[in-house]
């Protein structure tokens, strides 16, 4: 079944005048059917009812994923077949710019083991321990010499 309105490029509720105007540009095979059916009120009402039903069925088939089924041939119902359109998703909104902390990134990827601030701090503790130990050692030696 053909969608005569679609072929004539007019709306479903087009007036007789609008249909007559669009007939001029229509291909001959469509023009004959459209003249016979759409310009006669009784025939048009029967045709419209069947067209409305097929539009409903086409929408339901699309919604329920029944487009590729044995009773819905794309060739036979090409005017009603709803083709899914894939649109490119909109780009996500740009995040506000912020200063990148190199150390934070380095820590996140565990690359700051030998060059990080914490590493330096750890060495400082060890230096302090070593100095205290040397100082304590020196004090013991001095006191030991002083006792003689």
């Amino acid at each position, binding site marked *: 079944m053909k969608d005569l309105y679609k072929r004539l490029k007019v709306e479903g509720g087009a007036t007789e005048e609008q249909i007559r105007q669009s007939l001029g540009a229509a291909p001959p095979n469509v023009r004959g059917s459209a003249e016979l059916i759409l310009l006669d009120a009784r025939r048009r009402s029967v*045709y419209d009812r069947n067209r409305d*039903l097929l539009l409903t069925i086409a929408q339901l088939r699309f919604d329920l994923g029944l487009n590729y089924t044995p009773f819905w041939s794309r060739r036979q119902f090409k005017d009603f077949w709803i083709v899914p359109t894939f649109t490119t998703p909109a780009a996500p909104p740009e995040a506000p710019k912020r200063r990148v902390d190199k150390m934070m990134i380095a820590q996140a990827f565990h690359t700051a083991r030998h060059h990080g601030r914490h590493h330096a701090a750890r060495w400082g503790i060890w230096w302090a321990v070593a100095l205290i130990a040397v100082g304590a050692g020196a004090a013991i030696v001095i006191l030991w010499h002083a006792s003689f």
Partner: protein
Amino acid sequence: MTSTDPANATAPSFAAIFETTQHHQSVCTLAVLTWVASCDGRIAPREQALLDKIAESVDDVEDLAAVEAAVRLHRVDDLAIACRYLKANLDRGGKRLLVQLAITMAIADGSLSVGENHLLQFMADLLGVRPRAFAKLFQQITHRPFPQAGDPSSAEWWHQREAGHAAAPAADSAIAEDTAEEEKETDAGMTRRVALNVMGLEEGATLEKVHSAYRRLAKARHPDRFAPLGPAAVTTATESFKRLHEAYAVLSGGAA
């Protein structure tokens, strides 16, 4: 299609009924059957009587009257709810029974219109019944082959139809002339022509053929088979069975 009729604004929403009801299966079955009955633009008196009896058979009568009113508007969203529920919640046997029920409703007025033909094809696809199995079911229920749908967008179809020939075996019955005929038949009881139509027989069928067709159809349409689908389905089948019995009585000369 969503209708733009201002009266639709006051019509009940099927979605709201579906959310509040406890009888989901009955409500959805009735929705689909109402759609089948009303798809050709009118509900024939016989179809209306059948729908009324279905509504009586289910406890939640108020709900079902609202379902009928909502579904008659043919809103895609409403129909999608019922279709989705039935597709997801019926087992294989239940789906086949529902297809048989839809066929019974489609031919309740004695003919299969172009719209009913397309709708039955949709139901078969929805419920996963393959074309060959569907043709077999149709043959079982109606005792005749499933016809090709006519094409109301072609000039040939109209020429043949208006010349008095069947444009296709599935001529569109949804016109005023046929409505008058249907009412006449309701008042005067079943005629021989209608009885032959109900039993899928040709004029001049022998008594033996009538008996054989009756046995086959009675087996296929027996109400007990439809019990798993709930009271709405059983009522539809019962009415169809009664009509078959009436047709048999007419054709066999009151032997039934």
